[in-house]
């Protein structure tokens, strides 16, 4: 009955919309609010912040709201004249607010809020606390300022036969830093998180075998809360940190044996990392690690060198264990972002290979396999003059079909990957065809515990180099000394961020004779490219989906360019593609150019350049290395594409044609597919 009534009321409100909204404005005046707002410790400036009925509200067109969403990796979709405001969280979960309704839909469940979005005159306002809570952020109002950060909602212990697991759960994706200090015999492991604690100064008893107790503390200035977890660790105990699949939690494993440090793939899957924390925080939590693998300069560590391995151990997955689920829940928190209740780790016989990609440096190339956990492998080299070698990865399942990985490198002609065996064992085979005699090293990539790297060096192998070998990746471990954050690869390996160049008060280049504006063309191409990539299975986020500035309209060029980078960095994207149209003082230059900055991005630039030239038939100006801001300050593979010249009459006439813009988008999408082999499949 109530449901029918609600539906009837909703239908009635739609019939009378929008006049009802305007009448509502009379009853809900907005008083200006000048409080400071901090999100993840960063100050966000709102032009239109106010209060209504005692609650902070913000205008939906406020650049501060856009900036806040960028920091948390969320985005907003709203068409003026419609009733629904849809936000998509970093974890992909949709949140729908309805103008005039006090119910917000979060993943198809309705949550009551004091009041919903409303109009004052022609301006639409939304209650800020309801929005931030839906985004998984906790709010604190101190001294005329609001601080929004995740909240650590529980710390639970699981004491097994050979290890102790401390589960930390939060309302939103967490970033953390861990360090050891104190005497070697009685070290203290301190893990700090950016966010609030709801039970600061409390203790969790850890039994005394691997660790004594964990103490929860709260630090940081009012705008930048930091929660610390101090654990008194017994002598000789190692630890590994695993991000939960949602990103909103961490599992800390304490054990004496390295083999007990690994967790099943469910808990080890990398997820969101927040990359926009302030530099000046008293206990800085690191920004997201570069999603590009480290340069090939010896950082492939600790590489089980191909010439020095003994027989492999068949699996690194620990045996099942009986757990004592004595836990200390710090407090009930029904936040929609909570990921509590995740099952205890369970062993898995198979690890998945979710992605394969190639990067190159000056004198070496690296092939990286993104995995759900450690694997063992075996490699063989063919006899000269055949330079090929192959690697068989045991107990592994390839996600997606067998494929050729795109490479156009000086050292490597081709890389093929396939599910070589399914029974009796699961074996994935990687066949690498170098263009010359090469030396190789295979091993886990330092800082990326679930990534296997194959480094190919230009130098020929030594005369006594073996023709085969075996190796095994170790679960991530740390010794009692300052440690680095556990840093998986891209948080979202299936996510691509597209940046339509210019916009708002910066139209970019123009050709008035042909009626062309760069910012309009880049947006059109970006939207077509988004559709193409989504059809291919990618998730895509645009830095802007209308004619506006990505950053603060009153901000400077630095703020605007960094805002575009922040979108990709905060989202943990796999690729960043900035779309532009070239222009020159001369009417002669024509054709396409793809720019990169880091050597590791040259392959992506070349793949996109080749495919776009092929698909459009436009002139090929080649790939170039240039110091463009957005491809220097993004953490992932990044390129900037200049798609023909507005200043050239022939190019301009093509840019007027829809089919040509379609082909540019298709060409870039084909380049992405060529480079990546397609999106990873779950």
């Amino acid at each position, binding site marked *: 009955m109530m449901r029918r009534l609600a539906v009837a009321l909703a239908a009635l409100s739609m019939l009378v919309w929008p006049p009802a909204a305007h009448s509502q404005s009379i009853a809900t005046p907005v008083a200006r609010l000048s409080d400071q707002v901090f999100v993840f410790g960063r100050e966000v400036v709102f032009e239109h912040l106010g209060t209504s009925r005692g609650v902070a509200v913000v205008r939906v067109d406020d650049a501060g709201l856009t900036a806040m969403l960028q920091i948390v990796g969320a985005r907003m979709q709203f068409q003026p004249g419609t009733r629904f405001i849809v936000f998509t969280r970093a974890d992909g979960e949709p949140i729908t607010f309805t103008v005039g309704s006090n119910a917000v839909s979060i993943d198809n469940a309705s949550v009551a809020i004091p009041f919903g979005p409303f109009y004052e005159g022609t301006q639409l306002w939304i209650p800020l606390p309801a929005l931030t809570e839906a985004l998984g952020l906790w709010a604190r109002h101190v001294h005329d300022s609001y601080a929004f950060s995740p909240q650590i909602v529980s710390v639970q212990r699981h004491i097994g036969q050979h290890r102790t697991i401390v589960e930390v759960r939060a309302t939103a994706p967490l970033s953390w830093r861990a360090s050891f200090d104190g005497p070697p015999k009685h070290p203290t492991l301190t893990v700090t998180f950016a966010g609030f604690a709801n039970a600061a100064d409390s203790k969790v008893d850890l039994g005394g075998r691997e660790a004594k107790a964990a103490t929860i503390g709260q630090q940081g200035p009012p705008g930048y809360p930091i929660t610390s977890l101090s654990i008194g660790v017994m002598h000789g105990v190692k630890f590994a940190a695993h991000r939960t699949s949602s990103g909103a939690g961490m599992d800390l494993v304490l054990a004496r044996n390295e083999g007990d440090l690994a967790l099943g793939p469910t808990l080890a899957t990398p997820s969101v990392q927040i990359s926009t924390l302030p530099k000046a925080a008293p206990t800085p939590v690191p920004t997201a690690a570069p999603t590009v693998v480290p340069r090939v300069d010896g950082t492939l560590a600790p590489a089980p060198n191909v010439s020095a391995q003994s027989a492999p151990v068949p699996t690194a997955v620990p045996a099942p264990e009986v757990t004592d689920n004595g836990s200390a829940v710090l407090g009930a928190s029904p936040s929609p972002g909570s990921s509590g209740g995740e099952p205890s780790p369970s062993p898995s016989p198979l690890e998945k290979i979710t992605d394969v990609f190639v990067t190159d440096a000056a004198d070496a190339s690296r092939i990286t396999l993104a995995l759900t956990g450690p694997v063992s492998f075996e490699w063989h080299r063919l006899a000269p003059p055949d330079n090929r070698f192959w690697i068989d990865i045991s107990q592994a399942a390839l996600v997606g079909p067998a494929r050729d990985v795109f490479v156009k490198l000086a050292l490597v002609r081709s890389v093929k990957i396939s599910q070589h065996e399914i029974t009796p064992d699961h074996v994935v085979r990687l066949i690498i065809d170098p263009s010359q005699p090469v030396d190789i090293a295979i091993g886990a990539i330092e800082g990326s515990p679930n990534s296997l790297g194959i480094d190919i060096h230009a130098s020929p192998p030594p005369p006594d180099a073996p023709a085969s070998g075996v190796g095994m990746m170790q679960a991530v471990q740390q010794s009692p000394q300052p440690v680095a954050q556990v840093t998986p690869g891209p948080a979202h390996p299936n996510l691509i961020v597209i940046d339509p160049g210019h916009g708002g008060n910066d139209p970019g280049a123009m050709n008035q004779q042909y009626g062309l504006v760069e910012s309009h063309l880049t947006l059109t191409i970006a939207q077509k490219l988004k559709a193409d990539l989504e059809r291919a299975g990618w998730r895509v986020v645009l830095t802007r989906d209308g004619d506006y500035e990505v950053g603060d309209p009153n901000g400077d060029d630095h703020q605007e*360019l960094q805002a575009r980078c922040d979108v990709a960095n905060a989202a943990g994207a796999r690729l960043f593609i900035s779309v532009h149209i070239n222009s020159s*003082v001369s009417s002669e*230059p024509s054709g396409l150019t793809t720019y990169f900055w880091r050597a590791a991005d040259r392959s992506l630039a070349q793949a996109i350049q080749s495919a776009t030239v092929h698909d459009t038939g436009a002139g090929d100006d080649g790939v170039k290395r240039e110091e463009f801001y957005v491809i220097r300050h993004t953490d992932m593979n990044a390129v900037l594409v200049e798609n023909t010249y507005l200043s050239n009459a022939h190019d301009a006439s093509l840019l007027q044609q829809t089919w040509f813009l379609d082909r540019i988008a298709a060409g870039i999408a084909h380049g992405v597919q060529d480079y990546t082999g397609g999106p990873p499949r779950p």
Partner: protein
Amino acid sequence: MLAATLVIIGCSRHVTVPTSPKLTIYYCKAGSDDLVGFPFSVDPKLGASAVASYALNQLIAGPAVGRDSLVLFPAGTQASVTIDGGVATVDLHGPIARSFQGGGGDESGLFKSLTYTLTGLPGIKSVQVLVDGRNRAALPGGQFEIDEPLTRETFAQ
């Protein structure tokens, strides 16, 4: 005659700078990375700042011929230069400081020509660009990062 004085230099090749008392003003060819060098003679009694200022003014004014195929600073650009410890600081004013509406190729070409011209002078190793007196990430509407000193290596492919 004039054509014979042109020195076309690929960006990845070594650049030969005329010895004193000559200096070379470099311009970037539109749509490419190639530089075109125009040698000038200067009074050997001039100090380093005066030579740098002269070179900068010539660069912004552009050559008398062949302008159509070269990337030039927009009309109305004003600039000043100071030298300190091997760093030439160039402060740009005028339309370019309000909005740059060219493409990425022209933008990098402008800074390449500026950097090559000034680092071709004795004692100057790098060029720091200011916009209306301020250190900026890029020109308004531009993409090329200028918040750190530029050197010839900045433009290496």
